[in-house]
C-alpha cells in the first residue's frame, strides 16, 4: 500500500515537473517567436531580451531588486492559493501599501530611520491587509465570491490611490504625477551600486524562509493546507473553517502591501502613478510556477524578474514594446496548470468547484 501511495506521489511530482519544463520552454519559444515577428532587427532584439539582464552590474542588480516585490507578493498569493482562496486584488493591495509607506515616511522625515522604516512596512502591510480582508470577510460572512470581489475592490482602490497621488499628495514642484520623494535617510541601503539593489532583498529572502517554516512546521501552516485540500475533512479535524476563509485573504493582502512598501523604501522612493502596475499579476505567475512552495518562490521570482528585465532591455534598445512580456506571461498562465498526459487516457473534466480546489493542492 505504502509503495503504491509513494508511486502515485512521485508520478504527480514528475508530471508537475514535466509541466513546468514545458511551460518554461514554451515561454522562451514564444518570446523568440514574437521577437522574430515584431522586431525590426530580430538578432539584436533577441540578444537584448535574453542577455541584457546579465550584461552589466546595473541591469543585473535591477533585475535582482525587482525580485523583492515578486517574492513578497508571490508568498501572498501562495498563502491564498494554498488555502483555496483566489486573491485577484494584488494590484490594488501593492499600490495601497506603497502609498501608505510613502505617507508614513513623509510624516516622520526626521524620525529614527530604522523605526520609521519598520513603521512604513507595517503601514504598508496594514493597508494591504485591510483591502485583502475585505474580500475575506465578505466571503466568510455573506458568501460573496472572493475572486470577483477582490478584483472589483482592487480596481476601486487603484483609482482611490490614483486620486491621492494626483491630488492631495502630489508633489507640486514636479511635472510628473507623483508624490514627494522620501528622505535619503529612510531609504534601504544600496548593496550593488550603481544598480537599485538594496538591503530590501534580505527582507524578501527572509520572508520566504519564514513562510517555509510556517507552512511546514507550524499548526497554522498545517491547518491552512488541510483546509486548502478542501472538503469536509477540515471541519472533521476541528479546524475553524470560517477563520481560514478570511484570514488567508488578510495575510495575502498584508504581504502585497509589504511588497508595495518594500518597493518604496528599496527602489522607487516615491509613489508615481501606477508604479506597481502589473506586479500583482506577476506575483500570481510566481506562485503558480512555485506551486505555492515558499522556497520555490525565490526561484520563480528570479525567472519572472528575468523576463521583465529582458523586456526593459528591449524597450531601451529596440522598437518592440515591453508588453511582449505580457504575452509571454499569458503563455505561462495558459500552460502552467495544464496537464500534459501524453498517451494516457484523458478523463472528463472536473467541474468548476474542483478547479478552485486543485489550485490549492500543493505537492
Amino acid at each position, binding site marked *: 500500500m505504502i509503495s503504491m501511495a509513494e508511486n502515485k506521489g512521485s508520478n504527480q511530482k514528475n508530471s508537475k515537473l514535466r509541466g513546468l519544463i514545458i511551460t518554461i520552454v514554451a515561454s522562451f519559444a514564444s518570446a523568440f517567436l514574437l521577437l522574430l515577428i515584431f522586431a525590426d532587427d530580430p538578432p539584436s532584439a533577441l540578444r537584448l531580451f535574453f542577455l541584457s539582464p546579465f550584461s552589466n552590474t546595473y541591469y543585473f542588480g535591477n533585475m535582482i531588486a525587482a525580485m523583492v516585490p515578486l517574492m513578497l507578493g508571490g508568498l501572498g498569493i501562495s498563502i491564498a492559493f494554498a488555502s483555496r482562496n483566489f486573491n485577484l486584488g494584488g494590484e490594488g493591495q501593492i499600490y495601497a501599501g506603497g502609498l501608505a509607506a510613502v505617507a508614513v515616511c513623509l510624516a516622520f522625515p526626521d524620525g529614527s530611520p530604522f523605526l520609521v522604516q519598520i513603521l512604513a512596512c507595517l503601514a504598508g502591510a496594514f493597508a494591504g491587509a485591510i483591502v485583502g480582508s475585505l474580500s475575506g470577510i465578505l466571503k466568510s460572512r455573506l458568501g460573496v465570491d472572493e475572486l470577483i470581489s477582490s478584483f472589483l475592490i482592487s480596481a476601486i482602490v487603484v483609482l482611490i490611490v490614483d486620486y491621492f497621488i494626483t491630488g492631495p499628495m502630489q508633489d507640486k514642484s514636479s511635472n510628473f504625477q507623483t508624490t514627494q520623494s522620501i528622505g535619503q535617510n529612510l531609504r534601504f541601503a544600496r548593496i550593488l551600486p550603481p544598480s537599485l539593489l538594496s538591503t530590501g532583498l534580505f527582507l524578501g529572502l527572509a520572508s520566504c524562509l519564514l513562510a517555509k517554516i510556517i507552512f511546514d512546521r507550524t499548526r497554522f501552516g498545517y491547518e491552512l493546507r488541510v483546509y486548502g485540500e478542501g472538503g469536509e475533512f477540515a471541519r472533521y479535524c476541528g479546524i475553524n473553517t470560517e477563520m481560514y476563509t478570511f484570514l488567508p485573504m488578510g495575510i495575502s493582502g498584508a504581504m502585497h502591501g509589504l511588497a508595495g512598501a518594500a518597493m518604496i523604501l528599496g527602489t522607487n522612493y516615491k509613489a508615481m502613478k501606477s508604479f506597481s502596475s502589473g506586479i500583482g499579476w506577476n506575483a500570481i505567475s510566481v506562485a503558480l510556477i512555485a506551486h505555492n512552495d515558499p522556497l520555490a518562490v525565490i526561484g520563480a521570482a528570479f525567472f519572472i524578474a528575468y523576463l521583465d528585465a529582458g523586456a526593459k532591455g528591449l524597450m531601451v534598445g529596440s522598437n518592440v514594446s515591453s*508588453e511582449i512580456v505580457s504575452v509571454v506571461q499569458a503563455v505561462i*498562465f495558459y500552460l502552467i496548470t495544464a496537464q500534459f498526459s501524453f498517451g494516457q487516457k484523458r478523463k472528463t473534466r472536473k467541474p468548476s468547484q474542483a478547479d478552485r480546489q486543485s489550485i490549492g493542492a500543493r505537492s
Partner: protein
Amino acid sequence: MNFTSNLVAMLSGAVSAMTPLLFAALGGLFTELTGMLNIALEGMITLGAFFGVYGSALTGNLAAGIALGIAASTLVSWIYGEITLRLKANEFITGLATNLLATGLTVILSQKLFNTKGVVAFNVAPLPVLTAALAKIPVVGPIFFGQNILAQLSWLMAILSWILIRKTPLGMRIRATGSNQKAIIALGLKPDHYKLVAILFSGITCGLAGSYLSLNLSAYVPNISSGRGWIALVAIYLGGRKPSGILAACFIFALAESFSNYAQGFLKIPSEFVLAIPYAASLLALILGSLSKRRGDQWR
C-alpha cells in the same frame, strides 16, 4: 436644458452603455450555464475592440470590420477553451492568461502598426441607425429608436438567447452540462463539447461588445473594456442566470455609468471617483445579491 431633456439624454446614454455589457453578459451566461466562470470576457472584449475598429478602417466596411473583431475574439476564446478543456488547465488561470494576452497583444500591435501605445483614432463611418425616422418621437424615440444597429442587435440577442436556452435541445444540453453532467454522459454526449460551444459563443458576443465600444469612439483606447468583462459577470449573477434578469442588471449598471458621466459635469467630483462608480456599483450589487440570497435560504 430642462430636467426632462437631461433625463432623456441620460437614459439614452444608459441604453447605449448597456450594449457592450449585455453582449458580454449573454456570452458569459452560456459558459456560466455549463458550469464555468468565464473571467476571459474582459480580454476578449479588448481584442474585439481593437480588431473591430482596425478592420473597419482597413477595409472601409463596417460589417467586414466587425467580422474581423468577432474572428479575433472567437479565435482567442477557442485557444482558451481548448487549453482549459483538452489540457484540463485551471480555468481561472487560463482566463487570466486570455486577459493578459489581449492586453499585451493589442499594445504590441498598436506600437508596431501605429507607433503609439496610446489612443489610436481611425477614420470610420458611424454605426448606422436603422430606425432614425422613429427617433423623433418624444422620450422613447431617442432612447430606443435613436440607438444604432449593434445596440438593437444586443436586444435581439437577449431574446434569441432566451429561446436558445429554454426552447432548443442545444440549450437544454448546455444547461444540463452545468447542472447534471452525468446525464449528458449517460446520453453518450460529451460535456466538454458543450462547454467549448459556450466558450466560442462568448467569444462571438465579446467581439460584438468590443466592436461596439471602439466603433462608437472611432478609436482604440488602451484599457477600452475598463472592467466591463468583470461587471458582466456580476450582471449574470445578479440577473439570476436568465436573459431577462441579465438585461435588467446590465441596464442598472449602464445607468450607473451614464449617471457618473453626467455627475462629472455638475458635481465637480474628481474623475477617479467617477471612474470608480461602475466598479463600486457592481461590488454593491454583488453584496446585495448575496444578502438577498442568504435571506431567501433562511426562509426556505
